[in-house]
C-alpha cells in the first residue's frame, strides 16, 4: 500500500503525520513577527527559536475559520514540507481536512495548490469531525460500533456541533457557535488589560496564560461567590508569574502569597477571570453574543435529527478541539446536557486525552475504508478536468 499522509489543517495549528506514525506533529499555522528580531519572520514552530516572546505579531491565513490568505498558507506549507516534515507527495497520498461548509472557491484553491505546487499524486478532502467520527466509532470497546454520534468540535475560530447518523453528517442539524479559542484569548486579554496591566499586544503570552490558568467551572454561581472571598477562603485566586524572556520562558500559576520579597518577577492576580472566560463557551450571551451555549446547542442539534436516532446520539457525544482541553470540560458538559436531556435517555460525554489531535488519528481508519480509493482526487482526474471539474461535476 502507498504511504498516506494525514494533514489536519486547523486555523491555529496544523497536525501532520504519516497515518502509520504514532502521533502527529503539531505545528502552529501562522507566521509570527517579533519586535526584537527584525531580520526574519518566524514560520510555524520556528517561534521556539525566538527568545523574546513579548509583542508577537500574528499573521494568520484563516479569517473566521476559512482560509482567505493563501500567500501565508502557502508559506507555511512550504516551510512544513521542506523542513519540518519533508514529504514527497508524488508517491504519497494526502488526506487533508477543510472546515465544514467550506466555500467552493477555497476548495478549488486548495486542490490547485496541492496538484500544482506539491506534485500531489492523489488527495482526499474531508473534515475534522468526519475523522473524529472514524476514530470514535473504531475505538469503542463494544461488540458493534455505535451507529450515531455527536462530535462537538471546539476549535480556534468557532465551535461546531455535528451529529452523525450511520456515518453521514446530518447537514441540516449542524450548529455553529461563534466562540472559539481565539475569542477566549482576546477576551481574557481585554479584561486583564482593563483591570490590571495592559497586555493588549501580548496575544502569545496571554494565550499561554489561558491554557495554564483557566478552567471550566462546575457551579458557576458558587465559584463566583467563592471568588469574592479573601484568601485563604478563596480557592480560586492564583498568581500568574509572567515570563520575563530570560529565565522564565513560559509563565506559571502559583497560590497567592507564595512569592518571596526577593523575587522580582512580574505577577498577575487571576481571580474570577479563571473561569468566567471559558464560561463563554456555555453562555455566549455573557458578552452579548446572542447564541446558544455548547450544551443547549447540542440539545438543539440532536432534536433536529430523526427521533429514532436521538437515544444513540445522546449516548455518544465526543468533544474535541484545542479548547476542549480546559479542565472540567467533561463533567460540566455532562452535567448540563444531562439536565436538559429527556431523563430516559442515557447520556455519555467523552473528552479524549488529546482533544487537539484526536481527529488526526481518524485518518488511518479513513485510509483503510473500502471507499477511500474512490473518494480520492487523482492527478489524472485533475489534469483532465481542472480543479473546478474534479470538485463540482458541472
Amino acid at each position, binding site marked *: 500500500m502507498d504511504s498516506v499522509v494525514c494533514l489536519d489543517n486547523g486555523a491555529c495549528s496544523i497536525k501532520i503525520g504519516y497515518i502509520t506514525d504514532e502521533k502527529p506533529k503539531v505545528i502552529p499555522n501562522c507566521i509570527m513577527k*517579533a519586535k526584537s528580531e527584525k531580520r526574519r519572520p518566524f514560520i510555524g514552530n520556528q517561534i521556539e527559536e525566538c527568545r523574546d516572546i513579548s509583542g508577537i505579531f500574528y499573521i494568520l491565513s484563516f479569517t473566521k475559520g476559512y482560509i482567505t490568505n493563501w500567500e501565508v498558507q502557502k508559506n507555511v506549507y512550504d516551510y512544513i514540507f521542506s523542513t519540518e516534515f519533508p514529504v514527497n507527495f508524488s508517491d504519497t497520498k494526502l488526506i487533508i481536512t477543510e472546515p465544514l461548509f467550506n466555500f467552493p472557491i477555497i476548495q478549488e484553491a486548495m486542490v490547485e495548490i496541492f496538484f500544482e505546487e506539491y506534485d500531489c499524486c492523489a488527495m482526499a478532502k474531508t473534515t475534522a469531525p468526519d475523522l473524529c467520527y472514524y476514530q470514535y466509532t473504531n475505538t469503542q470497546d463494544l461488540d458493534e460500533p455505535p451507529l450515531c454520534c455527536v462530535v462537538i468540535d471546539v476549535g480556534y475560530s468557532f465551535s461546531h456541533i455535528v451529529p452523525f447518523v450511520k456515518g453521514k453528517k446530518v447537514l441540516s442539524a449542524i450548529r455553529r457557535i461563534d466562540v472559539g479559542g481565539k475569542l477566549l484569548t482576546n477576551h481574557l486579554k*481585554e479584561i486583564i488589560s482593563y483591570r490590571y496591566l495592559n497586555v493588549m499586544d501580548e496575544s502569545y503570552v496571554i494565550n499561554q496564560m489561558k491554557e495554564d490558568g483557566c478552567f471550566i467551572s462546575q457551579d458557576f454561581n458558587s465559584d463566583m461567590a467563592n471568588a469574592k472571598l479573601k484568601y485563604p477562603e478563596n480557592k480560586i485566586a492564583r498568581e500568574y508569574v509572567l515570563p520575563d524572556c530570560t529565565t522564565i520562558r513560559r509563565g506559571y500559576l502559583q497560590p497567592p502569597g507564595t512569592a518571596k520579597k526577593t523575587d522580582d518577577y512580574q505577577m498577575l492576580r487571576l481571580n474570577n477571570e479563571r473561569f468566567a472566560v471559558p464560561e463563554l463557551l456555555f453562555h455566549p450571551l455573557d458578552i452579548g453574543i446572542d447564541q446558544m451555549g455548547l450544551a443547549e446547542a447540542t440539545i438543539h442539534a440532536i432534536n433536529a435529527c430523526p427521533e429514532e436516532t436521538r437515544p444513540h446520539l445522546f449516548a455518544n457525544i465526543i468533544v474535541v478541539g484545542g479548547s476542549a482541553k480546559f479542565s472540567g470540560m467533561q463533567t460540566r458538559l455532562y452535567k448540563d446536557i444531562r439536565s436538559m436531556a429527556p431523563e430516559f435517555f442515557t447520556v455519555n460525554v467523552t473528552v479524549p486525552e488529546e482533544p487537539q489531535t484526536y481527529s488526526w488519528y481518524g485518518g488511518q481508519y479513513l485510509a483503510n475504508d473500502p471507499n477511500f480509493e474512490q473518494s480520492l482526487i487523482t492527478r489524472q482526474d485533475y489534469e483532465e478536468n481542472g480543479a473546478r471539474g474534479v470538485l463540482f461535476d458541472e
Partner: protein
Amino acid sequence: MSMRESGRIKDAEKKRVLDDVTRKRRARKALEALEQDNFQQDPHADLVMSKKIPKFNNSLDNNPRRKGRKTRGADYYRIKYRKTFQQLLEEDRQANPNGPNYITAQSPPTSYPQRHFCAVCGFPSSYTCTSCGTRFCCLKCQGTHQDTRCLKFVS
C-alpha cells in the same frame, strides 16, 4: 422668591445619555475587536530594506526536486484567490440560498436570560450606568467606570 428645585434633577438633565443605536454600535465594535488577530501595529512595518540586510525570498522553495518546473509562487495564489470572507459569504448565500450552509448552521438565540457582570471587576452586577448602559456592581466600580470608559470613547 425663587422656586424650590432639586439638584439631582437639574444634574440629570445636563447629563449626556447615549441612545440605543450608539449603545448597540459600541457593543458591536467590542465584539468585532474580539475577532482581531493583533492589536498592535506590524513591528516590521517601518522596516526599510537596505542593501546590507539580506532580502527574503517570499517562497521558501529550495526543494531540488522541483527545479526546472514552473512554480507559481505565493503571489499567484494571493491574486487569484483574494476574496475576503465577506465576499465569500455573500457569494455562498446567493449560490445556495436555502442551505444548509454557513449562515443556516449558526446557532439560534439562546432561550436563557442574559446574565449581567460588572464591567470593571467581573462579578455579578445589579446596577446600570445611566449614561452608557454598562453594568457595574458597586460605587467603587462605578467610579472606575466613569473615570475610564463611560463617555471617554464615544464615537
